């Protein structure tokens, strides 16, 4: 009985705080994406030759983000029937967008407006969630081209 109450309160806490944090995070992501729109992230490996060659600087952005208890519970139920795990999809989406934003922020602070050869890497770092992915790390990196002022 006590176990059941603890489980229910954990689920409720996870549900309310998780929703709240996710909503706020998406709001802030959308706001900052508009702010950094003029820093262009390009996935091509080699910049066009016509580009005014400036200094090349490696820029990185990373974030470690965790899923809440309620969503983890949903995901564990989902493994019984299979299919889309929507709760983890939004987690990965948020993490990737956040990592790219941090990379862009770094690029802009260096005075760059283009970042080439973007690579994204995802790693699951926390194994303490009883085998579940729980928290993930996303790293975004690329080469910022800082135009030389004349």
């Amino acid at each position, binding site marked *: 009985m006590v176990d059941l109450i603890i489980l229910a309160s*954990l689920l409720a*806490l*996870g549900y309310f*705080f*998780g929703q709240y*944090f*996710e909503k706020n*995070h998406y709001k802030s992501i959308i706001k900052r994406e508009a702010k950094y729109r003029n820093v262009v992230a390009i996935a091509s*490996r*080699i*910049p066009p*030759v016509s*580009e005014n*060659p*400036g*200094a*090349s*600087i*490696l820029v*990185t952005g*990373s*974030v*470690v*983000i*965790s*899923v*809440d*208890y309620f*969503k*983890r519970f949903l995901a564990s139920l989902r493994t019984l029937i299979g299919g889309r795990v929507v709760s983890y999809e939004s987690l990965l989406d948020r993490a990737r967008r*956040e990592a790219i934003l941090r990379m862009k922020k770094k690029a802009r602070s260096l005075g760059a407006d283009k970042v*080439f*050869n973007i*690579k994204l*890497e995802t*790693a*699951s*770092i*926390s*194994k*303490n*969630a009883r085998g579940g992915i*729980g*928290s993930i*790390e996303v*790293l975004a*990196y*690329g*080469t910022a*081209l800082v135009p030389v002022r004349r």
Partner: protein
Amino acid sequence: MIVSNMEIIPGKRVKEHFGLVQGSTVRTKHVGRDLMAGFKNIFGGELRGYTELLHEAREEAVVRMKQQAEAIGANAVLNVRFSTSSVAQGAAELFAYGTAVKLE
């Protein structure tokens, strides 16, 4: 020392190749951070402690890679890649590698 994850540096020519250079570090978090991460696993959200830890560790790996490149007389590292692997419970290895070259 120029570090880039592109194969070329725009406007510069590669004079000499020195081959692969690498830098790595293995890090683990302390108990306090682990406890905080436990709370965050209930509420969800960013684990700032971990973000910082991994960021610092990655910088360290890049610094070691640069030192290795410098030691063999290179002035740039191209095509840099990062890799993360967990080697033990709660410990992660951050690894950076690239090609050391001399630019004109």
